[in-house]
């Protein structure tokens, strides 16, 4: 999703700025988006004031993802996982009942901002799962933070998001600065590559990823050679010849266009060079990276921000449910299950603490220490998940499977 968001920081910044200006202009009237959190939650019944033991505490949360538009395949997968988390919660937690408002933000900040503004003003909502893309987080975070509304993203990876000073922002996936060292360590320690050819896409995300990977593997004594390619490059054969001349054990391609990874693999195979290609999140595409390569990427890798759910024993039940609920599920939706579960867990903690309102939910979320799918989730002071790494996948038999970790 991050690859769709290159223009978003700018647009998002403008949108937020204009909203803030609009909000600030009439000084006499209160800003419409900044609802004081203290008057929160008229419909929620705090557990302590429940008249009878049998009364159920109602929790209302919102969910944001691109449910239409170009990224809808990813957003609907996230939705399926979030729904599953709600269903599991409602089934297992007696005394609580959750309703989730499902909102479509598309993949643009301008669709996300009205949604965030609306929900910021709806005091019955105590927390938000999402937004999905970094651009929508950048556009919405100030609005949600101003309303004290905790928001926890399952896919926004831009490193700067957690540095904006929004205390209600959380995410359950590692940011892009974590991915480089993870990939680099895997290449050097597990694959034991000695020579790696590194390619970047001359864009922010790719250059940053290629830089960190190169730095990590060089520190471990790996020899590297580096080149950059344009998004418009169609003919990879000359580059393949250079790569063949260098004789690497592996090619790290920090690109975002999966079909370029497939083209490179094909061009190398055409010249009789069979070494794996290792790519970032953008390459995690069955259609473009595997099917489009006609077998040339067999044995190649892609790193994604969450481990393969099928490889986690504690996730077996959810994986089974998802096979019927969303048969095409991949690695993209699972973090939304985690995000939803953590938010609901914080709501329960807040309710048990006597007050189910926005500040208590946000405070409880910041203190999260919960295991989901057997993985421990904790946040640092900026809402970044602690101790998480990207998952690495290998292509075997024309499918992505979790890569062996040793």
């Amino acid at each position: 999703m991050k690859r769709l968001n290159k223009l978003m920081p700018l647009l998002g910044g403008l949108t937020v700025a204009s909203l803030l200006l609009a909000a600030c202009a009439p000084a006499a009237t209160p800003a419409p988006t900044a609802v004081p959190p203290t008057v929160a939650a008229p419909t929620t019944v705090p557990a302590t004031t429940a008249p009878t033991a049998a009364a159920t505490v109602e929790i209302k949360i919102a969910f944001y993802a691109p449910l239409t538009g170009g990224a809808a395949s990813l957003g609907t997968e996230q939705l399926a996982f979030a729904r599953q988390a709600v269903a599991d919660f409602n089934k297992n937690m007696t005394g609580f009942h959750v309703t989730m408002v499902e909102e479509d933000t598309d993949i643009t900040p301008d669709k996300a901002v009205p949604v965030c503004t609306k929900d910021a003003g709806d005091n019955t909502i105590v927390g938000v799962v999402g937004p999905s893309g970094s651009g929508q987080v950048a556009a919405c975070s100030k609005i949600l933070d101003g309303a004290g509304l905790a928001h926890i993203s399952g896919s926004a990876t831009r490193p700067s998001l957690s540095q904006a000073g929004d205390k209600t922002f959380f995410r359950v996936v590692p940011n892009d600065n974590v991915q480089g060292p993870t990939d680099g360590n895997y290449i050097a320690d597990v694959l034991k590559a000695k020579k790696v050819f590194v390619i970047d896409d001359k864009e922010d995300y790719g250059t940053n990823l290629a830089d960190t990977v190169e730095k990590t593997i060089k520190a471990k004594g790996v020899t590297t050679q580096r080149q950059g390619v344009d998004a418009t490059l169609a003919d990879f054969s000359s580059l393949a010849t250079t790569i063949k001349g260098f004789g690497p054990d592996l090619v790290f391609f920090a690109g975002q266009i999966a079909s370029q990874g497939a083209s490179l693999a094909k061009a190398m195979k055409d010249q009789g060079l069979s070494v794996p290609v290792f790519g970032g999140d953008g390459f995690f595409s069955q259609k473009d990276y595997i099917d489009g390569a006609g077998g040339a990427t067999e044995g190649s890798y892609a790193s994604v921000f969450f481990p393969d759910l099928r490889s986690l024993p504690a996730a077996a039940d959810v994986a089974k449910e998802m096979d019927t609920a969303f048969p095409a599920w991949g690695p993209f939706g699972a973090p939304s299950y985690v995000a939803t579960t953590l938010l609901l867990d914080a709501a329960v903690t807040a309710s048990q603490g006597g007050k189910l309102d926005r500040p208590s939910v946000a405070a409880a979320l910041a203190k999260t220490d919960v295991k989901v799918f057997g993985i421990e989730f904790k946040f640092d002071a900026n809402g970044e998940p602690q101790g998480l790494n990207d998952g690495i996948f290998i292509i075997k038999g024309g499918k992505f499977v979790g890569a062996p970790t040793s």
Partner: protein
Amino acid sequence: MAQFLSQAPQQIVNGLTLGSVYALIALGYSMVYGILQLLNFAHGDVYMVGAFIGFGVLTVFLPDAGPLLPAALVILLMLVAAMIGCGFLGVAIEWFAYRPLRNAPRIAPLISALGMSILLQNSVQLTLTAQFRVYHTEKLIPISAGVDLGPAHLSLVRVLVIGSAIVMMVGLAYLVNRTRLGRAMRAVALDREAAAMMGVNVDQVIVLTFFIGSALAGGSGVLTGLVFGRIWHTMGFNAGLKGFTAAVIGGIGNIPGAMLGGLLIGLLEAFATGFISSTYSDVIVFVVLILFLLVRPRGLLGATGAQKV
């Protein structure tokens, strides 16, 4: 040096393949310029449409189960369909975007050409989405098929691409130099008014020039898809610029020059990628264009005589 010697043969193969594609694009630029002194900047997008027509034919005749016809026949059908489709597209562009401006100042058709380019790109995006499409050439011709020439591997797909380009270029040379139509084209290029006075149907020659030039671009689009595998709606922009560069370097308006320019640009790009860096290969190609425009604007084989004013 050892590295250069061991990789140069493969880069020559790579460069000739890429150069064949560029040469076919450059021909269309050059022919239209020769006759109308018009830079048809929609030409790169005609090439893109050709790639998509070929993709359509490939999709119909190559279901997941395997090809419905022998591979050679499928490829021939793709080429023929793309060439005819693009030929008519070129004629339509001429009629719609250039003919009404034929006597307008020269900047007007240039702007019209840019508009046509944007129209074509957006039409393809709206109808076929912005997704990358993949030619599954490996289902027609195995990736590993080919011959080893010393340190270089010449795959069958590349033989097909270079061979097809040669056939098209020889056909064009025959048409221009040996037929009545070719003589009419040369006459119009030399002096449109005099040719008209001698009884040449100038409009017909212009239409046919657009048809042939666009057909070559369409064929080039299919060859690109077959050898490089990946097509998308803005692919024509960069390829069109390279074709234009090739036409200028060869001497715009000159048919053998466009062929030579295309091959040289292909080789230059391959060697720049191979021995300098892919990061800078486009920079190098366009620096060469600037150098030519400064030092030898008429190109390698351009007319030596005085320019018509």
